[in-house]
């Protein structure tokens, strides 16, 4: 059994290492004889509040930091995870815990009766050749805020980048330095007061200068007029409301710019309802974000006005709260993005009883093509369960068309599927770096979600072949406009074709929501190099527990062959269970016995020194 030392349990002597640079305090502590080494760094925010990250490095993991002597270049999977605690389970579920007939019971499986513990970045050995492949070698806990509800980081990591990680509920963006992996340090924090015109940070895209754009899905912190950094003003209805904003975050966490996601004029007041009603109606609740720097375009998809109104016991749910729009910004001036188009996704051939299940509802994610010859982008709807495509994001009025319905993929798992795309929880959407394939994670719909007759829809990750679609360029004819194409796939010759479906067995309320590409390969020189030939992806199975959609809290590795076929990497195993996938439902972590954790997003990372 591993021993560990935590700050909380044993007062260890700190060697305060000195360095105060740019408001950053760094302290290092080692515990002789312990199997966990603590390394702590702090960041003093503008308001005087001190944030910290504490590494809990497993010393017997047989790995070395990038800067140490004799170091062998290494690849890591960094997972942004939240502590699961009493707040993630209902009071009723606690009080109704059944008494066991026999004395043998599971002991403290999940610590759900424990108070909140720290959220953390888990650093997992992702080096296939390593003896500790799949082992958690460090947990870097953040403080002092708990219950951040860790959400997204950037989509992909490149040499020289920092990690940008957001807290959905804390409204905070953390910036982590990864030069000494598996050790991390905190290089910046962006607090709610740094983004007064936006709230509920969702996703990030890191630019070549290593700064990042982030989507803030919710409205301004405080209701009323809010002035953005470009001098524009919008009236918002407050935290978690509308309109959201696009924030340019520096590597030190500072706000370089905050841009309105909303038009200065009113959008369709029927489609874009806001609670409370705004003088200028807007659907601007940006969630997914990707960028083509070569085209000077930023694509952001609007998901929903996040503040809870769907559970309002009085007001009926309005499907239009789930947005059907995609926004494209001109980022020629990086600190002054300009909104150039707001496109409404078209309705499809399905006729749903629940208007919230219609194709364009809840455009959660968008992904751009990558090769210079391609200018297109894709978007997907979480509630609508379809994929849209536009061949050219540089146009003033890009034309979006539905090119795939998730039902076609769900059919592969369950040929008798009913309402296969209806609110099936589509999430991560990503083009392969060579633009041949499109990957998509779908939470699925649990049986009984709609009613007793609902047998649910598949929890899965699938691959589409998009080569023909991209080849056809602006002359594409693919369109899911006939009901037969829902189940059979697009009839036009350039429509995406289903290459592979990886079903995910998960009996929880959730399913696979996120994924990331492994864009690194070890070269003959022993170092890692970036590649467009993606051979594996990592996926995670968790959404947001407090929305009622949780997950099994597993992070899995998936192999991708040259044809885009997906197979589970069974050698990426949990160090405790000995079974495929790293299970974040565990009793102990390097930082202590905090029980289950909720992994929302993950990222393949290689330290600069290991990357050529």
């Amino acid at each position, binding site marked *: 059994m591993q021993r560990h030392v935590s700050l909380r349990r044993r007062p260890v002597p700190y060697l305060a290492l000195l360095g105060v640079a740019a408001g950053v305090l760094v302290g290092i502590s080692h515990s002789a004889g312990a199997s966990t080494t603590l390394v702590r760094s702090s960041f003093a925010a503008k308001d005087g509040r001190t944030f910290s990250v504490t590494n809990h490095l497993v010393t017997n993991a047989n790995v070395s930091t990038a800067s140490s002597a004799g170091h062998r270049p290494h690849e890591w999977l960094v997972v942004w995870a939240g502590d699961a605690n009493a707040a993630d389970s209902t009071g*009723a579920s606690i009080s109704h815990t059944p008494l066991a007939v026999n004395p043998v019971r599971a002991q403290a499986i999940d610590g759900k009766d424990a108070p909140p513990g720290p959220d953390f970045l888990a650093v997992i050995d992702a080096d296939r050749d390593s003896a500790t492949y799949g082992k958690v070698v460090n947990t870097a806990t953040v403080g002092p805020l708990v219950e951040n509800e860790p959400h997204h980081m950037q989509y992909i990591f490149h040499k020289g980048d920092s990690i940008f990680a957001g807290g959905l509920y804390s409204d905070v963006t953390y910036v982590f330095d990864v030069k000494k992996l598996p050790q991390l340090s905190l290089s910046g924090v962006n607090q709610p007061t740094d983004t007064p015109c936006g709230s509920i940070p969702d996703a990030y895209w890191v630019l070549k200068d290593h700064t990042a754009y982030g989507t803030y899905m919710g409205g301004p912190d*405080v209701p*009323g007029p809010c002035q953005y950094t470009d001098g524009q003003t919008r009236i918002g209805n*407050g935290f978690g409301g509308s309109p959201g904003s696009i924030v340019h975050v520096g590597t030190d966490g500072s706000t370089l710019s905050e841009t309105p996601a909303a038009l200065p004029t009113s959008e369709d007041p029927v489609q874009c309802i806001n609670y409370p009603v705004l003088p200028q109606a807007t659907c601007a609740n940006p969630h997914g974000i990707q960028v083509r720097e070569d085209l000077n375009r930023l694509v952001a998809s609007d998901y929903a006005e996040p503040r809870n109104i769907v559970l309002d016991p009085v007001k009926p749910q309005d499907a239009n709260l789930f947005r059907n729009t995609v926004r494209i910004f001109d980022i020629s001036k990086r600190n002054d993005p300009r909104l150039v188009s707001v496109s409404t996704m078209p309705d499809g051939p399905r006729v749903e009883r629940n208007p919230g299940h219609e194709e364009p509802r809840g455009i959660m994610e968008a992904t751009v093509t990558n090769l210079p010859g391609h200018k297109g982008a894709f978007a997907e709807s*979480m509630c609508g369960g379809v994929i849209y495509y536009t061949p050219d994001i540089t146009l003033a009025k890009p034309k979006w068309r539905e090119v795939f319905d998730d039902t076609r993929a769900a059919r592969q798992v369950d040929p008798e599927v009913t309402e296969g795309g209806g609110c099936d929880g589509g999430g991560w959407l990503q083009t392969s770096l060579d633009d041949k394939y499109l990957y998509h994670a779908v939470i699925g719909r649990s049986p009984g979600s709609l009613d007793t007759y609902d047998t649910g829809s598949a929890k899965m990750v699938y691959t589409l072949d998009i080569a023909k679609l991209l080849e056809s360029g602006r002359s594409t004819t693919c369109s899911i406009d006939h009901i037969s194409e829902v189940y059979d796939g697009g009839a036009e010759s350039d429509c995406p074709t289903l290459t592979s479906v990886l079903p995910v067995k998960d009996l929880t309320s959730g399913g696979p929501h996120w994924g990331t590409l492994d864009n690194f390969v070890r070269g003959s020189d022993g170092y890692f190099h970036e590649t467009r030939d993606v051979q594996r992806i990592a996926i995670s199975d968790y959404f947001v527990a407090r929305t009622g959609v949780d997950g099994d809290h597993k992070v899995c590795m998936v192999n991708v062959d040259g044809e885009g076929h997906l197979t589970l990497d069974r050698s990426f195993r949990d160090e405790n269970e000995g079974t495929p996938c790293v299970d974040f439902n565990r009793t102990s972590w390097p930082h202590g016995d905090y029980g289950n954790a909720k992994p929302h997003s993950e990222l393949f990372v290689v330290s600069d020194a290991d990357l050529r």
Partner: protein
Amino acid sequence: MPTFADQGSGRSRVNARLRPARLVASLILTSTFTLAAPPAWAHGSDTVAVTPSIWYAALRCLILLTTAVVAGSALLRLVLPAPTANGHRLLVGAAAVAAAGDLIAVPTYGAMPALATAQAAVTLGCVQARSSRTASTGLGAIVVLLVAWEAAAGHGPVGLLAAMLHTAAACVWVAAACRVATSGRAWRNTMRRSAAPVVLASVVVAVSGVAQARLDHLTASPIGWRTLFGTLVLVKAGALIGAVGLALASRRRIANGGMRLEAALLALAVVLGASLAVVPTPPATAETGRPLLRVVSVGHHALQVFVSPQRPGWNVVQVGASARVGVGRSGLTSTHPLPGVNGQWARVWLPAGHSWLTVEQGSKRGQLQLDAGQQPGPTAFASADAAECAEVSRALLARRSDATVRSCPTDALRPDDLQALTRTVEFLRVRGVRSIHVVSDASSRSLAARQNVQIIARAGAMVVDQPGADAELVVSGWSGAAAELEALRGRPAPEFGVYLAPWLLTAPLISRASSVATLTPLPFDPQGAAATDYVSHLSHLSSGGTPTPSGFAAYQDLPDSTADIRLYASALVSVLPTSLGHAHGGAASWLPGGAITAVSAPLAPD
């Protein structure tokens, strides 16, 4: 009882020495056993409401009784010869029933297959090994330990030890009675040889029973007699007293038939003791004049009941489900939700001293004894916002504090709340707000808040209470705030938002304003370590509590702090349609399913 039955001419020297104290000792032991009526495994709780099925209870009694007879008899082979033919038949039958019960428990009640099979096998082995004293004693000891461990599951170290000793001794005791009753003509010899272990077992049962009673905070209070638990205890006591009386009354003329009846009475007592394990323990005695949190059995339901302040006069009663409650002959009142707080509540008038609270659900009733004492409670318990005061008293219970509630939050404006309101008005002035609508009520706290807000606002050239004001500041109590937030659904919200006084940050109120996005100035972080500790303890104490700022202040018991007052935005952040996931109930957090996020730097002092 075989232990003290000293009959006939062949009395032993041991029994002769016991004779003078026989009657007294019998009564003491009987009463002790009765006081410690719940066997070691029959622990109750103030907060857990579980009522196992009657079939489970029956099966459990059957297994425990038959296994106790077999295991105890096997253990007694240390001092007794092999059983007679009658005794052997009894043991074979008991072992068969016990083994079958063990195996039936696997598919029906989820018993561990390996453990149940092993227990069944060893129980049968006890009978098979009757000719070997060593084997029989050893196997008997194993089964006694298994039964004791199984019966004592889930307790702390001291409780576990006491429970195991209690069960093991009970096994010996009941087995001795059975052995004497089936010894035929040799019953006197059997009784004499088993006297020492039985005396020892009796003492162990008594001592461990008392220890368990103390651990369970049980007393001889009459509370139990009105419950099924109390009835079972009474019948059990009757069986024991009958056994003792039978032994004493027939000491010279006792025959084997009398011993059988005595053994049967003792077995009945054991069965009743086993059945107590699956009957809800009666609530512990009320502490005079202190808020009371107990579980009351109503039919097949165990309802959590919270009475505050449990003083003479108006009180509020929270019940874990919709019910009707009342005291004495004053009639029953239906519970209903109260603004700002979770659960079902009713207002009840308590007389001084002892009284009985009746809880009724449908045709079923349960009762809870109260002890209001003589000192009246705060007058605010007569108001519509009494629940806020009740949550303060619950916070004190969560803190395990002996402090009592002498005044309620609505009685006065706290200095830190005044500072929070003052700084909020200044914040609004800087934001450009020119008019403000103040929502208040007639409570002392609210009136003081309104007066101060008006002064500060007017000093900042802001118009107060103008129709269609830029912003709204709610400083009323919970009921007034609930009504205002409800009304906001039907009219346009102020452009600069709705601000709530610090004491209004409760999940039920915030949920009413889910589409408004309220802001609250607070001197603490509801998701900070101290607040989460409070929420955690509150949820452990009871499932019906509501985290409240005034409750948190009472829980902390620290001086007011105004150093770091920030604005917190509260919103239920449920970014999924309900059709994708499943409905989720109230979670153990300040704002289940939502976020309370600091959105301002510390507000500057005026």
